[in-house]
């Protein structure tokens, strides 16, 4: 039991120096992945996703080994990549209808390309000749063009701001309790739904889940919530669970009434 929770032996010294990248400098796991992909120095459409997944996982492992606090989303991505890696390495079984490792890899490559394209677009946009900096309007306008019929002006933004402030002002008297660092059942359910949604085969998902998604502080709540959520999902037929014996690994797979994309979207929307 305890073995699982033991952190990988801390190998300080040599490795610590290598980790020069400041995790806080990244805007999320995709940003980090893009950075790592660029270090492969090839066109994004020709990157090795397997190598990328390994690099990312190694990066996360090192960050953890020197006890850098990692935000949950970095760990979610690590779990997903570990799963992707296993799909890429193990030949696909004939009856397996889920997306192949290659399909998952190309989806990831697409996302990296798209993010990079948007980054470039942002740069090109901001470097255009801009009004008020490079291009100027009439400095001494002589009239205001009456665009509006009403004689009054207000933007939707003004309106919404006024409303939000008003409603918030009223609510200010409410007591708020300090936020606790917990995985809610809804969080756990959503994470499970995302990860199991596409699995046709038995997978010991708790490995990925526990290994990558939790910081030591969060482990108790993560286990409690995800286990409770998984039981609930089994009851609903969303999931199937198999365990060979007491303390054996727990295998999960898609249930007879799996969570489809629409339901997932709904859950995400509800989660905000």
């Amino acid at each position, binding site marked *: 039991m305890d073995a699982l929770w033991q952190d990988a032996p801390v190998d300080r010294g040599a490795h610590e120096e290598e980790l020069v990248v400041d995790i806080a400098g990244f805007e999320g796991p995709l940003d980090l992945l893009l950075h790592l992909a660029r270090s492969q120095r090839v066109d994004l459409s020709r990157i090795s996703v397997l190598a990328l997944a390994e690099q990312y996982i190694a990066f996360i492992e090192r960050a953890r080994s020197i006890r850098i606090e990692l935000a949950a989303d970095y760990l979610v991505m690590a779990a997903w990549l570990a799963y992707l890696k296993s799909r890429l390495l193990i030949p696909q079984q004939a009856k397996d209808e889920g997306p192949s490792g290659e399909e998952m890899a190309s989806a990831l490559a697409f996302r990296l390309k798209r993010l990079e394209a948007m980054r470039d677009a942002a740069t090109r946009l901001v470097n255009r000749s801009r009004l008020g900096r490079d291009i100027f309007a009439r400095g001494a306008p002589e009239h205001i063009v009456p665009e509006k019929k009403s004689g009054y002006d207000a*933007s939707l933004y003004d309106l919404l701001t006024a409303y939000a402030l008003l409603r918030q002002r009223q609510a200010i008297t409410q007591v708020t309790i300090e936020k606790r660092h917990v995985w809610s059942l809804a969080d756990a359910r959503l994470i499970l739904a995302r990860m199991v949604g596409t699995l046709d085969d038995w997978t010991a998902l708790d490995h990925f889940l526990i290994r990558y998604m939790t910081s030591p502080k969060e482990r108790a709540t993560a286990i409690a919530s995800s286990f409770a959520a998984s039981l609930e999902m089994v009851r609903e037929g969303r999931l199937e669970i198999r365990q060979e014996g007491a303390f054996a690994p727990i295998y999960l797979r898609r249930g007879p009434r799996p969570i489809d994309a629409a339901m997932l979207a709904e859950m995400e929307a509800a989660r905000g």
Partner: protein
Amino acid sequence: MAEAQRYLPGLPEEEDELDEIALDPRLLEEAERIAEALVFASAQPVSETYIASRLPRGIDVGPVMSRLKAIYASRGVNLVQVADHWAFRTAADLSFVVQTDEQEIRKLSRAALEVLAIIAYHQPVTRAEIEDIRGVQTSKGTLDVLMEAGWVRFRGRRRTPGRPVTFGTTRDFLDHFGLEEIRDLPGIEELKGAGLLSGRVPSNLHIPVPVGEDELSENEDPITQMDLEELGLLTPKAEEDD
């Protein structure tokens, strides 16, 4: 340019080269002067509809604006189109001489700029889609800043379950970045061609997006230590997976 010169005041006009409808050249000249005065006098872009409403009867606003645009194309002040509006702006190549130290331009954070680009290229776009592209949650205040700057607006709602609100850019955005229309965004055609704008990753290839803050939703209670102990009995035994 030839088109422009023809109606330039003070130049002799060749009668035989006029449009089929024999428009009084004086009337056309007058229309040009009016349009010019209207747009020149305003700092904000002026709608073509409004200009049209001020022109002499029987004059088509489109050709008038095209001629004016051509006349001013080579000058220090250009007539530019912003969506269906018109404005006079200093020529971009004169930026070095018109610039002063006082001009203050809003500095956007990298994240805000990225969100702005995504909204511009993908509009109408929902917040979930923005987050899907960036792979991170949009921090509070990012959209806020863009809306306050007047570059981004709520457009409407997507006709899908949940009817999520969509975002788009404004005319001020076009004006600020010197764009006539959204299709003028740099590289937008290539991006479209490469499938990077419309291409949504198939939903079954979903890559996790962060869950976000660890807040409890309204209908939940925090898990207590006691719950944990209770659940701890059920904790699956796990093995190292590598």
